[in-house]
């Protein structure tokens, strides 16, 4: 069974986000980087499928040099090899370009199941998984909390509003992983030491057959117009008095201050 896991390195969820002065991106100075938590579910699930059915787990990730730390963490968890899409040309790419690049890298590999997190914790795009599936022309099931693979089919339970939906699909297929799918394992110390020796292939945009017009800002379909921090929440106002009086006060505030009625 050939398993592929799409992985992204993102800032630690505890990071205090600052916007880079004069630019529409975050300031990465002093930021702690981690494996996208949703992608950890994907790595763990791939490792479990591998244990049950035997196979190989390949990590595929697009990112700067630093992303190799996240890749090595996944290798330390037990993945077998990795592909790193690294190229300055990928800077300022939107999720369409990233999905295009990833799909081109995946096309070079054999695959039965592709797993990834349902979204990245930094941009919350929640689209790369689906876009990759479309570009590869394979079925996809998203927001999966339970997965059963047998032979050439997958049975995936996904979360929908107020219910669970069970979908059966043929393989190959792409699955986006949701919290609750599994409990990701820790890398072990021996695993960390072995990770150094596992194969890691680096691809540039040229290796994937992408020219300058197809990547970066040029190839993106999305343009970031502005980026700013939300206004700081001010302390609440406590209203006191008889219910009818308070209700009047609230109505007045909603109309005159919040301007929502």
């Amino acid at each position, binding site marked *: 069974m050939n398993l592929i896991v799409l992985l992204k390195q993102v800032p630690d969820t505890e990071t205090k986000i600052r916007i880079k002065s004069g630019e529409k991106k975050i300031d990465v100075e002093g930021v702690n980087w981690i494996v996208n938590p949703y992608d950890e579910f994907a790595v763990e699930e791939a490792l479990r499928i591998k244990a049950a059915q035997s196979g190989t787990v390949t990590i595929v990730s697009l990112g700067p040099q630093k992303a190799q*730390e996240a890749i090595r963490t996944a290798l330390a968890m037990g993945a077998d090899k990795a592909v790193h899409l690294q190229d300055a040309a990928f800077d300022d790419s939107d999720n369409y370009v990233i999905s295009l690049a990833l799909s081109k890298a995946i096309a070079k590999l054999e695959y039965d199941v592709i797993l990834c997190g349902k979204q990245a914790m930094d941009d919350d795009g929640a689209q790369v998984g689906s876009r990759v599936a479309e570009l590869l022309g394979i079925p996809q099931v998203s927001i999966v909390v339970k997965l059963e693979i047998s032979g050439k089919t997958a049975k995936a339970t996904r979360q929908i509003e107020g219910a669970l939906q069970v979908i059966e699909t043929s393989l190959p297929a792409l699955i986006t992983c949701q919290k609750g799918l599994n409990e990701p394992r820790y890398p072990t*110390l*021996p695993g*960390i030491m072995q*990770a150094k020796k596992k194969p890691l292939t680096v691809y540039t945009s040229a290796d994937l057959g992408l020219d300058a017009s197809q990547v970066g800002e040029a190839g993106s379909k999305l343009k970031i117009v502005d980026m700013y921090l939300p206004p700081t929440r001010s302390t609440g106002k406590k209203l006191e008095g008889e219910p009818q009086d308070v209700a009047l006060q609230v109505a007045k505030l909603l109309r005159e201050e919040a301007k929502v009625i």
Partner: protein
Amino acid sequence: MIDFELTEEQRMFKELAHKFAVEKIRPVAEYYDQTEEMPWPVMEEAHKLGLTNFYFPPEYGGGGVHDFITHFIVSEELAWGCAGIQTCILSTGLAAAAILGMGNEEQKKKYIPTFCDPQKVRLGAMGLTEPGAGTDIKMISTTAKKDGDSYVLNGTKCFITNGGIADLHVIFATTDKKLGLLGIATFIIEKGTPGLSTGKKEKKLGVRASHTAEVILEDCRIPKKNRLGGELGEEGSTSGIFGALNMLEVTRPGVGSAAVGIARAAFEYALEYSKQRVQGGKPIIKHQAIGFKLADMAIKVDAARLLVWRAGWMANKNMQLRRGEGSMAKLFAGDICMEVTADAIQVLGGYGYMKDYPVEKWYRDAKIYQIWEGTAEAQRMVISAMLRGAKG
């Protein structure tokens, strides 16, 4: 030239140890501090990740990480989580260090793998201290009398980590009091050997998750081959006490690294608090009394870590710690740990004194680092002896 940058392996080890400390140690630290129970569930998880035996040689089943600095980095993170629990996780190292430092090949092959069994966490204990022999090891009165193919041990050891519950005890005893230090030999006693029993388990001020107890030896008979390093004077024999003393110089910075972890935990907490707590119209860190105090705390933590790493760097290069660099690291780290944890309580004021806040526990945990593994006074004796050129 020196490079302060962590290698990729060190960075990943640190990340793992820190994650383990945050997710597995911190949530239960208070519980084990209060109940003084052995944190078996945490140790089992640590064992599965290789945290208990990553530094043992691979030929005996260990992780084969020989870099001392890597060891100190892991140790610091775990102690940052909880020094008591960190002691439990890494405690076996002392007994294993004795076997690795003084044992012959047969003994290493027999005993080290038991600590590397992925199926089971096994504990080691190192029994040196006695009621009458602390800093003055010469005063050891536990005797080991040769009797045919065996040794018979009699005596009492106290303050032994994992004492009585270990799968393996490494016990220092004298074969001939008249020979002083030269008469001291080391023996391996396997669990279940008749004649070895636990005395009382100690109730401690700090590192309370760790098991500290008396070990009583009453006509404890062990085979001759359990003497570490074989008979003195025999072909291939490795010395008893001097091997031990050399080994201690190298384990000392490791103990220092734990003190750095505690101090760092206290400093970070006090720092965070000082940014939130408003008195006199501003966060207290903006008052110089507190700001300056935190500056001093930060310097002390960093300086202690650097001394620990310097000793590790020298050990990695197999350099002789000729000026007591290991002792310097342990001594300084222990002393600043006391200062920084006390200051952390001070920064928190009244809240720092309450058990609701973690700083008082760190203060209690800190004290032992000026005492065990060689008191601060003993460290100064070692360093000053080396400075004046004394031998041994």
